[in-house]
């Protein structure tokens, strides 16, 4: 079977299992909604304050929610040592990474899309054209998080302190992409010009591609004992 075919088989299996259990998506969505709700009550976020902290609140919620999801992405494989069966399959083990990464990307996009109406509601935004470029930022930001996060989730999978290790590894590494996501979202909410947005889109695109390629190359070493 082709590399992509094996990756898609793993993706399909993960989606099938998640459809039954909702173990990853539910906590992630509730976490994001709770963060938005808490910030909504803690600060009055209409007007100028929205542009100051709204994007930071939104992306911080997504990053911390992603930690919940990434931490669970290899949990099914740990149970019954199913990861051994994946690693036993013939062919490049990068397919395991790609399947898991695509799954994480889909889960992140799902929580972003599910929470967007609440962000608009809590932060007194009017739905409009700004949503279109925001969806692009969601896609690129999620690809950055999923690319590097899946590798670190695999690395910390066999470790005793994996819940602690994953954020310690991921947060410093994701910082450049996170800053771009926040600044790009702030620009969009302020109806900024596309030319100002472009460098952030380029930065996020390059980050996602570089870390996906690097992770594909390193995954085999990261996942072994």
């Amino acid at each position, binding site marked *: *079977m*082709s590399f992509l*075919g*094996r990756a898609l*088989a*793993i993706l*399909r*299996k993960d989606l*099938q*299992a998640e459809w*039954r*259990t909702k173990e990853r998506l539910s906590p992630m969505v509730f976490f994001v909604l709770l963060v938005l709700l808490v910030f909504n009550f803690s600060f009055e976020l209409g007007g100028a304050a929205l542009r100051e902290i709204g994007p930071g609140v939104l992306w911080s919620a997504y990053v911390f929610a992603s930690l919940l999801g990434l931490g669970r992405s290899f949990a*099914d494989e740990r*149970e*019954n*040592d*199913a990861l*051994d*069966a*994946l*690693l*036993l*399959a*013939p*062919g*490049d*083990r990068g397919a395991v990474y790609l399947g898991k990464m695509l799954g994480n990307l889909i889960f992140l996009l799902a929580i972003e899309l599910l929470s967007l109406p609440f962000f608009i509601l809590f932060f007194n935004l009017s739905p409009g054209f700004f949503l279109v470029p925001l969806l692009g930022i969601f896609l690129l930001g999620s690809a950055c998080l999923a690319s590097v996060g899946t590798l670190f989730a695999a690395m910390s999978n066999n470790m005793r302190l994996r819940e602690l290790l994953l954020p310690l590894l991921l947060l410093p590494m994701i910082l450049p992409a996170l800053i771009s996501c926040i600044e790009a979202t702030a620009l969009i909410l302020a109806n900024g010009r596309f030319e100002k947005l472009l460098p952030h889109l380029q930065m996020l695109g390059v980050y996602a591609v570089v870390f996906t390629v690097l992770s594909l190359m390193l995954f085999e070493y990261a996942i*072994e*004992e």
Partner: protein
Amino acid sequence: MGGDDPIVLEGAAKHFGAQTALHPTDLVITRGQAALLAGANGAGKSTLLRLVAGLCRPSQGGVRIGGRDLQRTPEARAAIGLLSHQTLLYDELTARENLHFFARLYGLDNILERIDAALVEVGLSQRQDHRVGVFSRGMKQRLALARATLHRPSVLLLDEPFTGLDTGASTALHRLLREFRTTGGTYLLVTHRLDEAEGLVDRLLVLERGRLQLDESLQDDLDADALRARCAPYLDVAP
């Protein structure tokens, strides 16, 4: 040393930091052989088995499966089936979905026919649409057997496969292993329960503190007491 022997270790060793789990080991298991790998806890049995399965990388030396270097040729893993005391299955998926997933992962053809045949073979046709999470230990292990052999491997690696099996499942596994050998299959069996290996092996390998201390051919009909007597000097058990 034949070029395409099913299992070949060439000076394969494994270190974890300063700890040596397996000292440099040379081993050839030829086609149709059934080897029992015995040793006390921590002797390096699981490490050796994982090296042969390609689940960990040797610190030095190499492992060849069917003449192909396991590290350089990932496709060589297609020849291996692993049955462990863990099922390597997904509890959230049904029996059929589990087998379907592994069939796709191995790029098998005639997937539906193979799955039907495998489910009949292990007696789980009636439960094929039930989630594995609700299966008994014996049923899970029977399904694990179907998973391990779905791609028709030529080498079976068995790590304590009898753990938790009821008498029926244990008998079925015995029958399958005998059939596997008659078709030219090779297997390496790791078990503490030497009585379960009775009549199943024709070669005895004993590891002690990461070194292969005993390697001898056996009569097929060797009973458990005779096996115990041979292993006793290395296992701290009464002969």
